[in-house]
């Protein structure tokens, strides 16, 4: 029976990352979808940049930033008294940076496909912008929202470069399942790696089928 610690930690990390990224990504994608600003292409490019560097390298730079003597690490230290690197909070920040494009880009294209029409209709029915976003735009972008969350969540589960670098692979604190599998492969414990991988895949498959089937029947019902 493999140790469940990394599994739980991975789910926590992916869950927290997805929720926080949703909170960051939604307003960003909204702005990008509806703005007329000249800076839009620039912000779009910045949003996509985390993809270009390998995760381990992103992790390295985050490590430099999170060092207690560096700006980010310093501020965190003075606020919480702890260090950001090698903590769960550090992992979350790393995953957020790395997964940003997977959240923002699908959301943005979903919003652009919905367009202004339904939002205008909602506004003329007394719906505030927030109300219209929550009750018209998001339901109508259901598929894009799902895509964004699935990509972000699954990718955070599977990602290990950033996490390994920033988190330091500390059991029960920053050792997530992807690192555990990686470690087994690296230390030639192939049997253990197979078990963990198969378990992860089976779990992911069942969850995803559930999510997609739900999404489908939901949309069948209303469209």
């Amino acid at each position, binding site marked *: 029976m493999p140790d469940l610690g990394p599994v739980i930690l991975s789910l926590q990390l992916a869950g927290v990352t997805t929720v926080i990224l949703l909170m960051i990504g939604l307003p960003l994608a909204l702005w990008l979808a509806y703005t007329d600003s000249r800076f839009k292409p620039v912000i779009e490019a910045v949003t996509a940049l985390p993809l270009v560097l390998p995760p381990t390298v992103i992790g390295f730079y985050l490590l430099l930033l999170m060092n207690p003597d560096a700006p980010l*690490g310093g501020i965190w230290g003075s606020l919480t008294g702890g*260090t950001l690197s090698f903590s769960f909070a550090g992992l979350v920040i790393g995953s957020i940076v790395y997964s940003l494009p997977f959240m923002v880009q699908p959301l943005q294209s979903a919003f652009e496909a919905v367009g202004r029409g339904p939002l205008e209709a909602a506004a003329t029915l007394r719906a505030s912008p927030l109300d219209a976003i929550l009750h018209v735009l998001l339901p109508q972008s259901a598929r894009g929202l799902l895509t964004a969350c699935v990509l972000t969540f699954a990718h955070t589960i599977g990602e290990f470069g950033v996490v390994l670098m920033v988190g330091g692979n500390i059991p029960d604190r920053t050792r997530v399942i992807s690192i555990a599998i990686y*470690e087994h492969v690296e*230390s*030639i414990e192939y049997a253990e790696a197979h078990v963990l991988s198969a378990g992860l895949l089976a779990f992911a498959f069942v969850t995803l089928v559930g999510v997609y089937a739900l999404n489908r029947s939901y949309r069948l019902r209303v469209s």
Partner: protein
Amino acid sequence: SQPHRGDVMLAVATNFLATAEALEVEFEAETGLELVISSGSTGQLYAQIDNGAPYDIFLAADRERPRRLVESGRAMSGTQFTYAVGQLVLWMPDGDAASFDGEVVLGQADFRALAMANPDLAPYGAAARQVLTGLGLEEALAGKLVYGQNVGQAFALVASGNAELGFVAASQLAQGERAETGAIWRVPGELHEPIRQDLVLMRHAAANQGALQFINFLRSEKSQAIIRSYGYADIGPDA
């Protein structure tokens, strides 16, 4: 379970992880202290320590990076010593174990791909390159060399059948009760510099009694026997 810090935090180069875990069992039984082991590549562990990682002891795969940490003052001077010496082997799973002579096989070059660890990153890789250079084969084999990022990946390249043979660590072939089959050539020590793996004690752990206890534990003959049983060579006199 609440995350716990444990009594001693080790940063262990991946190639030594399995051995370290075996030692952990002994040590914890002996002292009642708790070890927490993090593993990674040596370069990565170095970068982490350089940026304030909370490890007490760094068991590296080389001597260079522990030395640098001592130089930069992150580690206690005088605590660096060689805890294990790697044994390089040439492994050919489908080879004929009886009549396997590495020099001959390498010389004939009758294979598609020869795997080894990245010589720029991994000590086993550097050693393998010295072997090829020494045999004068580096040029001849250049087109057939494939690299793993570390010796673990080099092993995977061979084990999965993608490379017919490769330079791996003896510790990978004989780990505890698991033993690989096939043709194995123990590379003679004179063909490369010894693969010395050093450890250092971090400055912030200078007063950690558990850490000092572990260092002493590693020096013990009992520990060294365990280490040898995992395929490492005799430490010999500290250089």
